[in-house]
């Protein structure tokens, strides 16, 4: 019996099981090739024991480690990963940066309102002295300020510190969620913040450095834009309430950024366009979910007789429709662009129908 003739069913099955850690799209292109390479190499070690190897052979620990390393590299999308995985990781890093930017801008607005006073949120008249009894009451509203240094740390390449700061900034929201279990308006932003912190994990030593200038410009532009918020006072009160809360600002950001990205993209989209479009589509999904959650809370909290109720809820629904109108095209174009990118990066030849599908 030759090596090739040996019934390699069990050995193959065990190796295929190991390959399940690889991303499905990569496995669809590579699995058979990798299995046959593995089986051939195992038979060549002891050709006379091919039958025994076929039945009792298993992937070695070193082989398992090598496949696991490959899976991690693909899923993390390092600079040298195939284009589709690289762009997906880039989109995740963009989600982290966009999310941090929005959280930091909101924190800056709160900081300004709390300590500097604003035309729409007056500064508290008398600050109570801090003591052990009210320590939590002082810390909790100010903890989100940590999103500002978290954003700065990510922009300047210190992602792990940013994750730590984000985790601390999230604690008061977590406490609020546990206190007001029935309010989606606590749970959804908690989910958003957990997602942002997790997305920061896509920044690693082997990923490209953040191009700082556009993000610092975006931060500055955001701060300047927030100073225009008093203009919202010209709207009816209920509209203003839904426009200048945190999900309201996320909706505004999506409505400004998504059309700009859609209009400025190359045709067909290049890798950078795809990464940005997928990120803004994720931001749109978060804004939609968050707005829907707050609208649901308001529908419950505000009594039917409340004159603001209908205005607030209609404004929320309009916001969601507008966000969906720009977010869905961004998602469609981004996903199509992603699927056009190859799973394996060969500059010549074809790897079969699954290579780019």
């Amino acid at each position: 019996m030759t090596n090739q003739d040996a019934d390699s069913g069990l050995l193959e099955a065990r190796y295929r099981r190991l390959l399940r850690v690889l991303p499905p799209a990569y496995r669809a292109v590579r699995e058979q090739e990798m299995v046959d390479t593995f089986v051939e190499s195992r038979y060549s070690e002891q050709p006379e024991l091919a039958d025994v190897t076929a039945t009792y052979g298993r992937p070695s620990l070193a082989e398992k480690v090598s496949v696991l390393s490959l899976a991690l590299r693909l899923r993390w999308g390092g600079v040298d990963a195939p284009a589709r995985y690289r762009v997906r990781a880039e989109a995740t890093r963009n989600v982290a940066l966009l999310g941090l930017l929005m959280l930091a801008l909101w924190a800056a607005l709160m900081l300004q309102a709390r300590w500097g006073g604003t035309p729409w949120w007056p500064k508290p008249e008398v600050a109570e002295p801090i003591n052990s009894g009210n320590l939590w009451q002082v810390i909790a509203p100010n903890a989100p300020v940590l999103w500002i240094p978290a954003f700065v740390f990510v922009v300047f390449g210190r992602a792990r510190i940013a994750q730590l700061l984000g985790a601390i900034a999230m604690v008061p929201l977590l406490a609020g969620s546990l206190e007001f279990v029935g309010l989606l308006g606590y749970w959804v932003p908690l989910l958003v913040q957990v997602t942002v912190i997790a997305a920061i994990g896509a920044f690693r030593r082997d990923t490209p450095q953040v191009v700082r200038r556009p993000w610092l410009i975006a931060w500055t532009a955001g701060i300047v834009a927030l100073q225009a918020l008093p203009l919202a006072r010209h709207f009816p009160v209920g509209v203003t309430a839904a426009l200048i809360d945190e999900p309201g600002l996320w909706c505004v950001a999506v409505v400004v950024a998504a059309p700009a990205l859609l209009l400025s993209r190359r045709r067909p989209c290049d890798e950078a366009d795809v990464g940005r479009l997928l990120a803004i589509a994720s931001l749109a999904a978060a804004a939609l979910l968050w707005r829907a959650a707050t609208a649901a809370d308001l529908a419950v909290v505000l009594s039917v007789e409340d004159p603001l109720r209908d205005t607030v809820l209609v404004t929320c629904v309009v916001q969601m429709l507008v966000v969906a109108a720009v977010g869905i095209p961004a998602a469609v174009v981004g996903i199509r662009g992603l699927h056009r990118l190859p799973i394996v990066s060969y500059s010549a030849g074809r790897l079969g129908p699954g290579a780019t599908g």
Partner: protein
Amino acid sequence: MTEQAFFVLTALVGQPLHGYSILKAVTELSDGRVKPRVGTLYGVLDRMAAEGAVELDREEVVSGRFRRYYRLTDDGHRLLAREAARQAANARTATERLAGWAAGVGAEPAAGEAV
């Protein structure tokens, strides 16, 4: 460039090879020092392909086994030549310093050491 990538490119000089034959050639070329696993090999091939150093040559089914053959691109040849020159220069520098040290202390040069 990792040692594994270096030997994978070296194995592909002048001949397209498939996965198992690359593994075998790398082990032989490195005198058994480098024995890449299958997962590692395909990681290296992906990296080298992303850099434009390797491309697909052809696909075949031989005795029921599916094989993809890979070949070195022109960029791959240049990349390997640069890396080989860099390693040769490093080796030369180390060898010269060792020879100088051996002469200074009257030590015998190590086996295989150029003096």
